């Protein structure tokens, strides 16, 4: 046991900075990948839910929408259905060999993680959109919003709130799974681990350190996501608007009298008066 701690200290002393840089790389890949994955997911999800009206829409529009749905379907199935490690090799070397394009490691890394997350997020977002009460869409249509305005202002903000736990899942999975990108020589945390044990043969010690670093990152991520959820939910209470002079003049005989002191209405306290 004495040895273990001593070895850990030695490893950290020698390679502590490398571990940190590796962790930084991992975190950056996961963050960028999850972000663009979500953007792709929201776009694909919204595109897949464009309504088609057989009576009103012309044939070309219906065909186009069907074609697009087919293409998006293929994208989702392809990237959900193959391992990321294989995709990384396939794209990195495929681009080089077939098209003579040498994409940098970073660019490839971001690309792979983004489109992979995007494929999963597309289905998640579609589920999130479907779960929103159709009344919300009708309410938006009834004041003249089109599909995109309805999506942007009404449906997606609510869907986003509902799928944050799933975004969190994807982010945490990405923190861990970017370790497979070491196959295209990205020096992420796991790559650092492999280099360290190659030099010092301290398998257990290095693995312990790496475990702790991964766990710290994922726990911190879960905590921050919870905070974000809370922020999106908004405050439990609301203030009656009393700074606005119009508020004082609401003269409905059935409406509550305007309150002249700013106050919090705690809904749990039964103050939801009519």
């Amino acid at each position: 046991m004495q040895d273990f701690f001593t070895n850990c200290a030695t490893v950290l002393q020698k390679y502590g900075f490398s571990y940190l840089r590796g962790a930084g790389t991992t975190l950056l890949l996961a963050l960028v990948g999850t972000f663009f994955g979500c953007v792709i997911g929201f776009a694909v999800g919204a595109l897949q839910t464009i309504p088609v009206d057989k009576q009103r829409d012309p044939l070309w529009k219906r065909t186009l929408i069907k074609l697009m749905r087919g293409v998006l379907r293929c994208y989702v199935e392809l990237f959900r259905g193959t391992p990321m490690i294989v995709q990384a090799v396939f794209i990195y070397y495929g681009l080089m060999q077939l098209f003579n394009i040498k994409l940098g490691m970073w660019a490839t890394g971001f690309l792979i993680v983004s489109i992979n997350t995007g494929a999963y997020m597309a289905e998640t977002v579609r589920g999130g959109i479907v779960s929103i009460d159709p009344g919300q869409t009708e309410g938006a249509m009834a004041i003249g919003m089109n599909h995109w305005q309805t999506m942007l202002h009404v449906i997606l903000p609510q869907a986003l709130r509902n799928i944050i736990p799933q975004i969190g899942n994807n982010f945490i999975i990405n923190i861990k799974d970017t370790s497979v990108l070491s196959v295209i020589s990205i020096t992420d945390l796991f790559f650092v681990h492999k280099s360290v044990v190659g030099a010092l043969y301290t398998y257990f010690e290095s693995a312990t350190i790496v475990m702790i670093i991964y766990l710290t990152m994922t726990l911190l991520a879960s905590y921050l996501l919870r905070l974000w959820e809370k922020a999106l939910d908004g405050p439990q209470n609301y203030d009656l608007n009393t700074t606005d002079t119009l508020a004082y003049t609401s003269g409905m005989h059935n409406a509550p009298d305007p309150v002249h002191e700013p106050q919090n209405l705690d809904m749990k306290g039964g103050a939801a008066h009519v």
Partner: protein
Amino acid sequence: MSEPIIEVRHLSKSFGTHVVLRDVNFTVNPGDVTCVIGASGSGKSTLLRCINLLETPTNGAVLFHGQEITEKGFDPCSYRAKVGMVFQSFNLFNNMTVLENCTAGLRYVLHQDKETARRTALENLEKVGMAPYIHAKPRQLSGGQKQRVAIARALSMKPEVLLFDEPTSALDPQMVGEVLSVMRQLAADGLTMIVVTHEMAFARDVSSHVVYMADGVIAEEGTPADIFEHPQNPRTAEFLSRFRQQ
């Protein structure tokens, strides 16, 4: 009398083989308050939804200022911006505050600036007695309050016609009172309204025209006095018998 705002002509609607509306005809002139009454399942709500194009009519026509709304090339979005709708289940945007609910259409559909939209929204919220609640989210309001906000949201668009789809059916008696008194005020202000309702007293006292529907057709229509005092159709008499006994 000026030209009619909405004319419904030979309107039919079926879902698959199930016929919901059959050859419905009626006209709405500016300032009319038309109440549509009838048993549940008689097609009242579907009629309203066809007028707002939330459902596409199977046959027949709906004319808005003489223009056919189901025609190809007719823009349903700008049409709906002029024909407001209030739903039984309120359908307020859950992600927005009361004020944002009322400014959403003004800002995103009519592209007004924030301050103009805010002023219009406040004016209308004040009309329905909900101005103090602009910072509340829909989930923090009672049913009657939600419906009054929904009315303010629809009014903010300055609609030419406002459609009400059983606006009080999801509310308890006290809340029904507060919503109906708002609607009475709107009718008195001269707003053109089509109201699908089970509130017979409201239909009798406020409307200028009453349409009684049964099994997807208009069984009888006329002034409130005609329908409520001297119903010609025995089905109308039967439907109203309970109310008239009270």
